[in-house]
């Protein structure tokens, strides 16, 4: 079942790229949407409870290396899988238009499918192959279909993104080899111990992907130069590959050695929260602003991961998934704005969208307040749980350290509120200056926005849907990871 869920988007994506000249754009996007919907439904159906691995497939792959084709859904990966398939589906719906190039749909499908593969892999080498597989398609998506006004800039941004990620993933590879050599197995659940070197190499590699300050410099350019679907996948899915990697390969698989690395990650995460919030003030380009805000949100997730507590795991998964949905919505809407006005500069878009394009403005404000953590919407729980995990200190941080970080993180929340309010004031409110390009949300934009807004609302009202996965009776707060261990 999982294999089908992975193969369908891969095959349809490759076919669309191959026959890009023969398929009309609209049909291609609908085909893509169908493929991602199949994947989503299959991943939803395969689930049979948080205990154990659902839909496990384990066959021999490369015998001499003891590498298996081993995939399955765990409590840790399930929310990521659903979120990825959901965002992939919405990206395809977004692309339903006559002027869509089938190759873009194909790239979206391949990127989504590779990311699904990463989340579903239970073998280290297989996970790494999927991890790398998504990168070159993403390069093409940014470099060829990115910002139309800046061909050199988008190429530079794409290359920088790729080289940063590859240097990170190369370090992850070294970490994986160390783990494999030490525990004589590539199966993640068979890894018993590892060295601090392996844990720090893997952490460093995924820190590039997450990204953590100071390894974040690739992110603002890549996100702002990418096409709308590229930005959504980068922020919604690719950053989650980083947090998932930290959670699964470091915090879970190398639990003990990761404890030595975690405090540094926590500090980097909190520095990112404050730093990115300050950087957001200086942004005029809406896409850059959202990109920087992502660094802050990932800071919360990393802070939660580095506490190595059960609340931390719940907070990290919840924060990641919710960030995917909210930032996805923000990037979709800023894509709408960019499509209309040819730029994402807030000064150029002008004030008073409430009057000019009411539904677009409402959707944007909804996403912005969700992102800054308004109670009742999903963003709130991500940050609250993260702060709570820091408050409870967890297994590895010291109390004074954790609480200091907590203080800075709270400061970051205040700053986040401020810059989102500034953005809302700059474009949504104020005296409207109508322009010819003003046009409210159209057909597929409504579908995408409503779908994301509804999911944000549902998770905001019922966070237990995800958090409940880690609230198993066998779990105590001081301990173990048995909730996420099958």
């Amino acid at each position, binding site marked *: 079942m999982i294999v089908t869920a992975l193969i369908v988007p891969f095959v349809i994506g490759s076919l669309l790229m191959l026959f890009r000249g023969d398929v009309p754009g609209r049909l291609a996007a609908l085909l893509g949407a169908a493929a991602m919907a199949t994947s989503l439904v299959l991943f939803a159906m395969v689930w049979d409870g948080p205990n154990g691995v659902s839909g496990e497939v384990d066959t021999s792959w490369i015998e001499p290396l003891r590498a298996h084709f081993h995939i399955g859904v765990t409590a840790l990966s399930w929310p990521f899988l659903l979120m990825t398939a959901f965002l992939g589906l919405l990206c395809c719906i977004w692309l339903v238009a006559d002027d869509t190039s089938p190759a873009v749909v194909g790239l979206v499908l391949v990127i989504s499918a590779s990311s699904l593969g990463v989340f579903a892999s239970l073998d280290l080498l297989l996970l790494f192959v999927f991890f790398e*597989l998504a990168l070159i398609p993403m*390069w093409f998506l940014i470099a060829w279909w990115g910002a139309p006004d800046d061909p050199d800039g988008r190429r530079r941004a794409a290359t920088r993104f790729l080289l940063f990620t590859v240097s990170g993933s190369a370090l992850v*590879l070294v970490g994986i080899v160390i783990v494999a050599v030490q525990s004589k197995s590539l199966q993640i659940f068979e890894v018993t111990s590892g060295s601090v*070197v392996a844990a720090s190499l893997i952490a460093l590699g995924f820190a590039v992907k997450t990204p953590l300050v100071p390894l974040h410099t690739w992110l603002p350019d890549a996100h702002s130069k990418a096409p709308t679907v590229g930005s959504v996948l980068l922020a919604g899915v690719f950053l989650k590959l980083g947090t998932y990697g930290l959670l699964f390969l470091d915090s879970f698989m190398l639990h003990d050695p990761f404890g030595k690395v975690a405090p540094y990650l926590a500090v980097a995460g909190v520095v990112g929260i404050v730093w990115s919030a300050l950087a957001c003030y200086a942004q005029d380009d809406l896409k850059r602003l959202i990109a920087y805000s992502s660094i802050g949100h990932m800071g919360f997730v990393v802070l939660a991961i580095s506490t190595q507590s059960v609340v931390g795991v719940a907070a990290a998964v919840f924060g990641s998934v919710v960030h995917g949905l909210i930032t996805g919505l923000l990037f979709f809407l800023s894509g709408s704005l960019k499509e209309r006005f040819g730029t994402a500069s807030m000064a150029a878009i002008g004030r008073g969208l409430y009057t000019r394009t009411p539904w677009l403005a409402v959707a944007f404000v909804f996403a912005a307040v969700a992102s800054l953590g308004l109670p009742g919407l999903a963003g709130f729980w991500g940050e609250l749980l993260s702060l709570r995990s820091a408050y409870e200190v967890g297994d590895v941080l010291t109390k004074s350290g954790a609480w200091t970080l907590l203080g800075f993180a709270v400061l970051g929340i205040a700053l986040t509120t401020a810059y989102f309010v500034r953005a809302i004031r700059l474009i949504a409110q104020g005296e409207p200056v109508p322009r010819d390009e003003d046009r409210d949300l159209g057909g597929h934009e409504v579908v995408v926005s409503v779908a994301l807004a509804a999911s944000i609302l549902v998770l905001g009202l019922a966070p237990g849907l995800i958090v409940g996965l880690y609230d198993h009776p066998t779990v105590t707060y001081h301990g173990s990871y048995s909730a996420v261990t099958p």
Partner: protein
Amino acid sequence: MNIPIDWTVVGPAVIVAGGALIALLVDAFYPRRTWLGSGLPSTIALGLAGLELLRTHEPNDYVFALSFIVLAGTLFVVVASNVMNFENAMPPGEYHFLLLSSAAGALMMVAAHDLVTLIVAFELLSLPSIALVGLRQGDRVAIRSAWTFFLASVVSTAITLMGISLLYGVTGTLDYAGMNHALRTTDLPDSVVAVAVVLTVVGLLFKLGAVPFHVWIPDTYSGSSVMVAGYLSAVSKAAALGAVLILLATALPPARDTWQPLVAIVAALTMTIGNLGALRQRDAIGLLAWSSIAQAGFLLAPAAALFATDGRRAPVQYLAIYVLANLVAFAALAVIVRLRGSTTFEDLTGLARTDPWMGIPLGFALLTLAGFPPAVIGLVTKYVVLRPVIDGGHTWLAVVMALNVMLGLAYYLRLIVVLVDRADGEPYVSPSPPLSVRLAKAMVIVGALGLVVLSAWPDLLLSNLP
């Protein structure tokens, strides 16, 4: 000094050398000097040598794997060399004679188990390939390249000979096993042994193109015919690596404290300098020349951990994929040189669109060299060479390798992007190519298909090579 000859070991080499002579004679007495006239005997000789190899060796033998790589690589070169048949300046008889003589040297080199055989094989490999580089008549650049190659080769041989004589002096034997025994049992002056080992290894590293003996490579590759460059980068390098591995693993294990750090440092420098050099290239052949220096670093790295788990298998498995991918790339470029006259990035723009049967295999070969999915086999062999390095405790070297993977991707991807980019202006349409070009094209496609199949089933390679 009596050196017994083991005919079962030299069988394939003798057959190949015989084939070289027949190719030369056919060309001399056949009225019209055609490419096929000497190419056919060469192909048959290589095939017979392959059969002889299968007959006399266990398929899981280390020497078998290396000889097989040498034979298959040479066969690939011979068939793909048909693309040069239009060049009147390139005499086919001499070409095949020199190529096969050199291949015979390569076969002997990987089978050598004493230092005299090694040095004779080394010369048999080197001298014909020097002539091959300068073979094209009236080409001053080629002759200059051959001179560079010759001088560098002679110096390195001299150094190796000095090392060998020192080793002979201290151990009293030239046989690998005896040397191992002597180094282990007798109390020899450490400094002399160290100097002897370093000098011996140095000459072989030259052939491999390792830093600091890499300078001849870009010059030689750009001056010679494309397929000759392909031969040097694949087969000749395979033989050198095989000889280094066998020498280090069987003769010099007791002196490992001397050469292990040396090899590790040389490997790290080689891959870094090679990659940095490749970053500056704007010509596909120059790029492949520098990248083959960098790849030599990856080949050499596991040699620093020969005694770790799979330390001896890893370099051979990496080598097999490197040879195949490199030959596919060079053969594709040879076809392009024939059809378009140049391999600068401008001339290659949009190749995957205008000529997908050349552009896509070339792109896939480059992805394999970069070690990036969908060329899974490239990634898997990168993993394979990382494993012994880490098991042997050289974590720093592994990190250097990892960063070099990133550097490598930077330029391979640049070329791949050039290949798939939209071409400016009129797309180049090649006229219906003659049979000779089609043969070379077929080799490119077959080789690339091999890479695709191995990417789908990496087990196929990893389970079957020793």
